[in-house]
């Protein structure tokens, strides 16, 4: 399962993050290899979102080291946009640009950041729209699509930048139950194709079937990290056991 010969896509060493007096991340260290799939779970306020938002620097860590695809995250502005273009993010609230059509949403970043031509960007966009199985919605506006469709578009939008890593911040939490599986299916396909992924989610079925490692976070710390069979069936830490009993009993 784990291949020590592979490079690390993401390295976090002793990362700390404060919001005012509140410590959101405590000495967090995590290595993610290329092609590895990580699911992060934990109670709300445990720092899971903060963790992945530090990876594409939507939050700035206060101490420690974060290296993404070989670039160390510091304050230098030029690097940030370049780093972000290699890291895709899918948000809980989709965040599709409401004033642009679906296809325009997908074409915007490739044209502005990668300087693709209009036709190149359009071809890429249609390719990914077909991947997420909604090519016919290309000329509609986000407000005309269902939640599940919007989230799939959001995934396609991130993929159009050909990222090396995909980050998912509770992608299905804002969806009605009947639309969750269509999004999870897309994410599963993506994982099968070898995309490096870090996914914050409560969908434990997804974690079991897709993840290489499951991480449990609580109060800003990584409490336990194990492959799914061990994580779910033989949790080591008391806090992990407590959390699992609370969410799996529903």
């Amino acid at each position, binding site marked *: 399962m784990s291949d020590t010969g592979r490079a690390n896509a993401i390295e976090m060493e002793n990362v700390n993050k404060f919001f005012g007096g509140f410590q959101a991340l405590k000495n967090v260290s995590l290595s993610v290899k290329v092609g590895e799939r990580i699911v992060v779970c934990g109670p709300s306020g445990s720092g899971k979102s903060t963790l992945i938002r530090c990876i*594409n620097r*939507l939050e700035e860590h206060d101490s420690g080291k974060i290296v993404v695809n070989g670039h160390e995250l510091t304050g230098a502005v030029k690097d940030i*946009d*370049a*780093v*972000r*273009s*290699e*890291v*895709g*993010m899918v*948000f809980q*609230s989709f*965040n*599709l*640009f*409401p*004033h*642009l*059509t679906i296809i325009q949403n997908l074409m*915007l*970043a490739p044209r*502005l*950041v990668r300087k693709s031509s209009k036709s190149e960007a359009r071809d890429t966009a249609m390719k990914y729209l077909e991947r997420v199985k909604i090519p016919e919605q290309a000329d*509609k*506006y986000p*407000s*005309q699509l269902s939640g599940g469709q919007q989230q799939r578009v*959001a995934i396609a*939008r*991130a993929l159009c*930048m050909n990222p090396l890593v995909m980050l998912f911040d509770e992608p299905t939490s804002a969806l009605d139950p009947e639309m969750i599986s269509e999004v999870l299916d897309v994410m599963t396909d993506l994982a099968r194709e070898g995309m490096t992924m870090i996914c914050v989610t409560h969908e434990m079925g997804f974690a079991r079937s897709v993840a290489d490692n499951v991480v449990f976070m609580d109060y800003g710390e990584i409490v336990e990290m194990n492959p799914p069979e061990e994580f779910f069936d033989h949790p080591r830490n008391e806090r992990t056991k407590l959390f699992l009993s609370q969410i799996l009993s529903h």
Partner: protein
Amino acid sequence: MTFDFALIADSIPKMLMGIGLTFQLLFLSAVLGLVLAITLLLMRISGRWYLSVPTMVYIYIFRGTPILVQIFIIYYGLPQLEFVRDSIFWPILREPFGCAVLALTLNTGAYVSEILRGGVLGVDRGLKEAGAALGLSARHRLVYITAPIAIRLALPAYSNDVISLMKSTALASTITLLDMMGIARTIVAETYAPYEVFISLMVIYLVLTWMIQRSFGWMEKRMSRHIKVEA
């Protein structure tokens, strides 16, 4: 009490001769004011204190004092200062028209920049983050994401400000300009018929207001076509 309709019929064309001046004041101040407002906005949201603080002071002063006083300071007050009389702007500042446009521009610029700022603040943070996550630079995010949405949000408030601006042009009559209001005042001074003259002028202004509202309503509709289209 009789209503002198003949006087109304006679006065309206005379007052409408002033409409050219009213429109000139309105358009010039609106356009220049918008340019000023955008400049002020960029300074205000720049994040650099030496740009944002003077801007906030400027806006505070111009929104906190009556526009009539601002007009008087520029028209009656500036000539007191020697460096103004010696400057290259003197030919403009000597004329009531130039002073009126300047005062209206400075005033509307302050209001509109706050309106635009309201629009910018109304743009959902998540959308800006999505742009950042895609690797778009700060400038790209401002132009392609924030601006289109902010403009649509600011449009209703902006249309109100344009109407206010139009009403303020009537104050130009206090510094001798013969716009519609100025002409009306001279007619009333001669005929002692305030009701006929002023009420007909009121109707003219109401028509102008209605026209401005219709235009902006059309613009708002066009810009909102992507919102909840009932498919």
